[in-house]
């Protein structure tokens, strides 16, 4: 007996053709949603930073400049795709894909709403995120190396060093949450927070480490050394143009969305909240995260390379370890 419900209830049933179609629709919806969010987060970034710097921001294309990013994307699509001489051609062409695919893949486990139609409810959720997001380093490094450009090489090398260093505190700060919830499943973590409080309160130390390490993982200000415009002209993507460049940018902003989703899930109760529907709560929490990131970008100067490396190993890592020990001991005592 076929009903519309077959489409949306693939989780928990043997896989059927309607279920498969439902899955495909779900994945495509998330893809389109991600593209839309990326476009409007860039718009919001420019507008918000504009206001902070006493400017107006984009206001020419469409009402209040709302179609500015659409115009930018179309421009990138019709731009010539310059492949410089002497590049390592295969790697140069593949690098943006290496960077983008894991960024999109981690979205598959972020619980955007209470009902798992659009994302997968897998048991190892938190670990899956950390594991897959680390693959992006390869895309960035390959892009920097294969460009045969000195700026790109330095940018790629810096990027690898930075992402390696901040991967460790990021992973450790998540362990604190896993310890409290007793599960790696992201939905389980949300459920555990519904019984008690949002984990941002008991895990405040882990939260601080998570936000700082997450900002560094995404190469955002004040940790935007890999693509420091004023010293490296653009870092690992100097030689990229047109849509290949667009995919590097897309990667960055998809990670912003994914990291916001992960943060909301781990520390702010995910889609749980009173009165409003779950997806709206989730959107609000992600929006606050976006705004916070753009605020940082408008406020903080870039830190120095040596400061950045020692900050991770000498401060964040011991803090994350201390948080872990405290959480474990308190959990045994209470």
């Amino acid at each position, binding site marked *: 007996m076929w009903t519309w419900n077959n489409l949306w209830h693939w989780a928990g049933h043997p896989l059927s053709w309607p279920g498969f179609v439902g*899955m495909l629709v779900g994945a495509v919806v998330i893809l389109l949603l991600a593209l839309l969010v990326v476009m409007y987060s860039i718009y919001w970034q420019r507008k918000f930073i504009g206001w902070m710097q006493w400017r107006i921001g984009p206001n020419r294309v469409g009402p209040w400049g709302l179609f500015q990013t659409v115009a930018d994307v179309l421009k990138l699509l019709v731009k*010539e795709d310059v492949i410089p001489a002497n590049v390592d051609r295969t790697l140069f062409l593949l690098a943006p894909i290496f960077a983008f695919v894991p960024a999109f893949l981690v979205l598959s486990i972020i619980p955007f709403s209470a009902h798992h139609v659009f994302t997968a409810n897998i048991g190892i959720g938190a670990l899956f995120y950390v594991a897959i997001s680390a693959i992006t380093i390869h895309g960035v490094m390959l892009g920097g190396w294969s460009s045969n450009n000195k700026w790109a090489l330095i940018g790629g090398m810096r990027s690898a060093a930075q992402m390696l*260093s901040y991967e460790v505190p990021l992973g450790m700060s998540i362990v604190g949450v*896993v310890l409290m919830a007793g599960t790696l499943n992201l939905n389980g973590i949300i459920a555990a927070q519904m019984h008690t409080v949002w984990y941002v309160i008991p895990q405040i130390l882990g939260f601080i480490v998570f936000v700082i390490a997450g900002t560094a993982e995404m190469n955002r200000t004040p940790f935007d050394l890999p693509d420091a415009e004023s010293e490296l002209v653009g870092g690992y993507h100097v030689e990229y143009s047109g849509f290949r460049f667009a995919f590097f940018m897309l990667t960055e902003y998809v990670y912003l969305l994914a990291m916001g989703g992960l943060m909301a899930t781990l520390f702010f109760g995910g889609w749980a909240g009173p009165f409003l529907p779950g997806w709206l709560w989730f959107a609000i929490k992600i929006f606050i995260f976006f705004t916070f990131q753009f605020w940082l970008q408008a406020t903080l100067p870039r830190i120095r390379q040596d400061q950045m490396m020692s900050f991770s190993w000498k401060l964040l890592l011991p803090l994350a370890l201390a948080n872990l020990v405290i959480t474990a001991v308190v959990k045994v005592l209470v």
Partner: protein
Amino acid sequence: MFQYWNDYFFVVLFLLLGIFLPVAAIWVLGPLLRPKHPTVAKNTPYESGVEPVGDAHVRYNARYYLFALMFVVFDVETLFLYPWAASFHQLGLFALTEMLMFILMLVIGLAYAWRKKVLEWS
């Protein structure tokens, strides 16, 4: 069981879609829309507007070599911590002591690296 695999199948679907989008945009849709007029000057690597000096595929001093070694140690450690954390409420005091000893050993390692000035970026 099927419930378990369904979710992973969904992840694979995301993987395929994630590969499909850039391939479609760069290799299929792109060539139809964008111009292609390569010239010699356009294809030289960018080096602040001057003629590039030499090649960038050189032996580059990867300063983060030691950091990478440290990363391997601590990332594997984190990997051990995940299953411990997930099943902590069943394991109790014994597992806590074991893991505290494990963490202590790694802290000693970190302190040693710190003292040996491995953590300096110089």
